[in-house]
């Protein structure tokens, strides 16, 4: 654990990519193989199951810290990270421990089987033998996620340099549902075939955005200059659903979402068509809710995400289908190195052969002869229930991760509105103890009605300024939330808007974010609720229906 704690500390102490890779390599080169796999699991989001309910962990930490519970909570708001708060508030350790990361994870898994009293005893003993830094990573293991400012790409890069195996290959090998207890370092670095783990998905290829701002839009000429001839590209609508990879191998089916969650059971409507696919087929596409052959807005699909049990009613109200747009494996062969056009032909064949064309749909190609024509077509995105247009180079391979060059997403402008900030709350992580999460309001007569919370879109400098304003213009405090003097105006962008019975404003926004700080506007010049409601799509159903 000492090595793992030091790894954390060292990574924290630098923001230089090369330095981070060096630190990761040092770690890989100095710890036992089992620790390497555990580290890899943790850094790719494979945390051990929580052995102790986090409320209990928190309560015992408060007890050990010998401060009132409310002060513990306030401290948490200041620190912005529970694991760190606990490690700072407990008394200094009284002894030491030389257990490895693997040994600690084994203990954590083991203690889950014991009764509450034994767990408490184990936890307090463990805390008292770890120093602050070790205790912090230990608490992370117990409670938190491992978001640590190091991307999976960086970890894979370091591992690639240590093993001499290509990064793309390693990225593929660490996909899927492996556990460090059963997947050894030796297995990882050996030659492998897909047969080793029939559920293993391929890394997703992600599109790069064509950057635009509301003031500066890309023209047809700009596109021609950076992308070349339109004939080299295929265009599709950018669907607003759940990105998924669907696998049929050895008679079994697997559905993976982009977050590497195995979601096979969440989409029973897709099972018949997947079961009917030939073995050794992997499709890439978007899962959406459909009614009468038309895609529905994302908020309809949203009502069924995260539900443990899919009731009959949900399956009736928001049945899903797939819009497939790529084929990564065919007849058991990895075809990611074939061109986009070649893969498209295979995909079309597979789709033409399906008996379930209502569920296994294909992403239609948009016909266009010039960039100017495509620009005009893009205006129809909202009517198509699409977020914009996808551009894929016809001779491109299917790559790993977000790459510039061959796949582009060209989204439509977000909807936007000018709103007044009225509440502020402190952020987490890098933004701990700074007011970074804001609630915005629009005018309804002479009242400000809150309608959205947003926290991204400002620069660090702007955040500092808003933080400074909030700290000096607080009207009231409600726990972590401050009511601030309504004065600052921001332009809020969002992807969609729906009616809502849950919110006082009567509307709910999708992906609200701050586009810019309107220094030029006074609070009286902010938009009204009426303006906001005018943006409601008259046909869009309320997300509350059926929930």
């Amino acid at each position: 654990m000492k090595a793992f704690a030091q790894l954390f500390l060292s990574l924290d102490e630098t923001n230089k990519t090369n330095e981070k890779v060096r630190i990761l390599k040092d770690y890989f080169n100095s710890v036992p193989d089992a620790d390497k796999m555990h580290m890899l699991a943790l850094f790719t989001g494979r945390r051990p199951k929580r052995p102790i309910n986090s409320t209990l962990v928190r309560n015992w930490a408060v007890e050990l810290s010998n401060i009132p519970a409310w002060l513990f909570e306030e401290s948490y708001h200041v620190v912005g990270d529970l694991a760190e708060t606990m490690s700072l508030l407990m008394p200094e350790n009284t002894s030491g421990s030389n257990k490895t990361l693997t040994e600690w994870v084994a203990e954590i898994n083991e203690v889950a089987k014991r009764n509450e009293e034994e767990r408490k005893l184990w936890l307090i003993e463990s805390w008292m033998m770890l120093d602050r830094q070790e205790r912090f990573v230990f608490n992370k293991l117990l409670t938190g996620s491992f978001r640590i400012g190091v991307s999976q790409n960086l970890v894979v890069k370091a591992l690639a340099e240590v093993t001499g195996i290509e990064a793309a290959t390693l990225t593929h090998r660490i996909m899927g549902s492996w556990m460090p207890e059963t997947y050894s370092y030796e297995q990882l670095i050996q030659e492998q075939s897909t047969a080793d783990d029939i559920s293993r998905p391929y890394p997703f290829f992600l599109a790069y955005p064509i950057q635009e701002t509301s003031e500066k839009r890309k023209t047809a000429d700009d596109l021609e200059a950076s992308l070349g001839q339109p004939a080299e590209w295929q265009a599709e609508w950018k669907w607003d659903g759940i990105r998924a990879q669907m696998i049929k191998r050895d008679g079994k089916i697997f559905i993976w979402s982009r977050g590497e969650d195995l979601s096979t059971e969440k989409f029973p409507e897709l099972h018949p068509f997947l079961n009917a696919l030939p073995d050794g087929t992997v499709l890439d596409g978007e899962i959406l809710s459909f009614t009468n052959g038309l895609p529905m807005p994302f908020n309809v699909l949203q009502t069924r995400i995260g539900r443990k049990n899919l009731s009959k009613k949900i399956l009736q109200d928001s049945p899903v289908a797939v819009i497939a747009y790529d084929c990564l494996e065919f007849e058991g062969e990895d075809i990611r190195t074939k061109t986009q056009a070649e893969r498209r032909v295979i995909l079309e064949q597979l789709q033409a052969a399906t008996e379930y064309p209502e569920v296994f749909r294909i992403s239609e190609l948009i016909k266009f002869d010039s960039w100017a024509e495509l620009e005009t077509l893009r205006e129809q995105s909202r009517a198509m229930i699409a977020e914009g247009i996808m551009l894929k180079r016809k001779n491109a391979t299917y790559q790993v991760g977000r790459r510039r060059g061959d796949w582009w997403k060209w989204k439509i402008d977000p909807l936007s509105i000018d709103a007044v900030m009225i509440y502020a709350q402190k952020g987490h992580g890098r933004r701990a103890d700074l007011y970074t999460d804001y609630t915005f309001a629009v005018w309804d007569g002479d009242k400000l009605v809150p309608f959205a919370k947003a926290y991204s879109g400002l620069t660090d400098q702007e955040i500092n300024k808003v933080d400074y304003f909030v700290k000096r213009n607080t009207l009231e405090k409600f726990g972590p939330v401050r009511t601030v003097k309504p004065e600052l105006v921001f332009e809020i962008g969002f992807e969609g808007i729906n009616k809502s019975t849950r919110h006082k404003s009567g509307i709910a926004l999708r992906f609200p974010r701050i586009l810019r700080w309107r220094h030029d506007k006074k609070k009286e010049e902010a938009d009204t609720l009426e303006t906001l409601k005018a943006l409601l799509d008259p046909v869009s159903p309320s997300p509350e229906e059926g929930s």
Partner: protein
Amino acid sequence: MAKPLLEFTDRGIYCEQGRFYIDPWKPVDDAVITHAHADHAYVGHKRYLAHHLSKEVLYYRLGEISLQTVEYGETVMKNGVEICLFPAGHVIGSAQIRISYKGEVWVVSGDYKTQDDGISTPFEPVACQHFISECTFGMPVYQWKEQAQIFSEINNWWCSNQQQGLLTVISGYSLGKAQRILQNLDLNIGPVFTHGVIENTNEALRRNGVILNPTTRITADTPKDEIRKGIILAPPSAIGTPWIRKFAPFSFGYCSGWMALRGAKRRRAADRGFILSDHADWDGLVSAIDATGCEKVYLTHGYTASFTRYLNEIGFDAREVHTLYGEEEEETSPNLTPPNLPGGEALKEYGNDSDRQVLPLGEDLGGVK
């Protein structure tokens, strides 16, 4: 009930009986100054009273002022009110001000720390009935380590940078932290080069008779090769400027109490963050307040709300008061630049100028994720 000896006004802490202010932020006739940081020593007062060791720094920062200086423990009478200065341990020349009149005793502590930094006269608890305290770090997550341990980390880091051929830049605000760092660097490793702002303060302190380790002011003529053999001591405001970029590549270390938290450390984006503060930590604050034996304690700046609540729960009679202190570099939390608000308008205190009503909190807000 008689009027209390000190009151909190919109100009600063005021003693009506003695007709003087302590650390006022608007121009007054008579100002008693706890220490020379900008949020405590404002320009524009007719007469200043401060500690001897603040003299040259005050002249340097405020220009020609009418200044009387005294020693710790020395008594000055103003209109029958007794004023006496005691060490606050915050920076060189920082003082707690004891004010007594007819048996009523108040202590204004200004900023203070209970740790002995080896360069400021160490903090002394002063018995009083009313104690006015800061609480910049008034949360239990702030607990300082021994300074010897921190400086051994700093010297090791400098040493290892030097072995890698990397220049070292360390930052701390110009009055206080800079001298504390300077006096604790291991000069066997190399010489110390200073940014002009820090060197001006060093010179003022030297004029005041303070003995500091040797430093070299960086000027346009200072050879870069020479500088690379040593360490650069720069104020936080110099970080990220073209001035400092000339010296790249270097490793940048930042010394502040805020570095105790990962979030702040990451935000600062320093190569190394060292937990070193000139303010009292949690235990320091609680023990300092306890040691005064005071009946009432007033919290001026920092985590006032929660610290007040905590003190009341453990048996003190504590209350929050509003002041404009807490604008000194370390106190304004680890932001990259001093904030500069649009139009200056936002800085105004909130008044009843709004005829429009904000809805109360209490509902789940829009924003589907």
